[in-house]
């Protein structure tokens, strides 16, 4: 920690993720949907492993509740002014 290319970037991220996971839980979005892992650009296998594991976690959780909220025929409109 602290030896981040972006100076204190990883310190900030660490704290925000900690906070965000809890906030998401509170509004009903499983905290496991947010994950943080430190992987350097030289650690390809670790990256692959982490992503695979994350995908598995997400699959086990099923579709995001937010996805269900979206109406199927609603295009990702830039504006939907009512």
């Amino acid at each position, binding site marked *: 920690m602290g030896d981040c290319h972006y100076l204190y970037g990883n*310190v900030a991220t660490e*704290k925000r993720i900690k*906070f965000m996971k*809890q*906030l998401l839980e509170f*509004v*009903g979005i499983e905290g496991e949907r947010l994950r943080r892992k430190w992987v350097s650009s030289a650690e390809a296998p670790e990256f692959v492993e982490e992503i695979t594991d994350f995908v598995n976690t997400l699959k086990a959780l099923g579709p995001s509740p937010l996805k269900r909220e979206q109406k199927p025929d609603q295009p990702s409109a830039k504006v939907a*002014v009512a």
Partner: protein
Amino acid sequence: MIEKVIERVKELLEGGEIKGFVGLCNKNGHTAPYLFTEVAELDHLVVGDFQNPGDARYPLNKLLIDLYRAYPEEKFGVLVRGCDERGLNDLYVWNQLTPKNVVAVGIPCPQELADACGCPKPYPDNSVAEPIAEGAEAQDLIRMEALGVKERFTQWMEVFSKCIKCYGCRDICPMCFCKECSLELDELIPRGEMPPEIPIFHLVRAVHMAGRCIDCGLCNEACPVDIPLRTLYKKVGDIVYRKFNYRPGFDKGKSPLNVLENK
């Protein structure tokens, strides 16, 4: 209580200690924020009990910030309740105000208001009168936390979907002082949409208030569609306390989430 407040403000104005007093004024059948500069005007000073205790509260500290920016050399007085005092403490930490420019005149809140707010400390340290109420528990938060994750999702999405993007919650917040606001960033929350994208709009604001919200509940009162924002922000405060052992306005020092200078 109001007599004591008036007495104190009179003293401050007459002694020339403050240039003016940011308080509440009752005129023409309305209560509104007002900058008192003359002793003669103090007849109209009120503490903001319109029909019920504390139902005419305003973000006086926010007005104080504007005054401070315009007159950085002058000293002003301000009417504070427990939450407002927490706000002042935190605004000093964030360098939005300095203690040498501010004289707080505090009033304690009655139990009825403390209970309605679920306020942990319904009185300022610096007060014209002794506390008259004890700290209360945040019932709404306890109730919400008792629900399952799915139920919480349904309930929050239901209330967020009422949002009309009036920005009232932000505009009234005494702790919102940034010059540029993330809520207006097209990349985060597409502009021109009504309702705004949910829950992103509300979560972006919540994240930015972490370590800053002093639990005054004004956002909740301002919201025209009755979104229980205070419950959300109580949780924000709760997370910051449990995870980082920090309570804005109570604890000394900078917020642990203020990463800019907190390497």
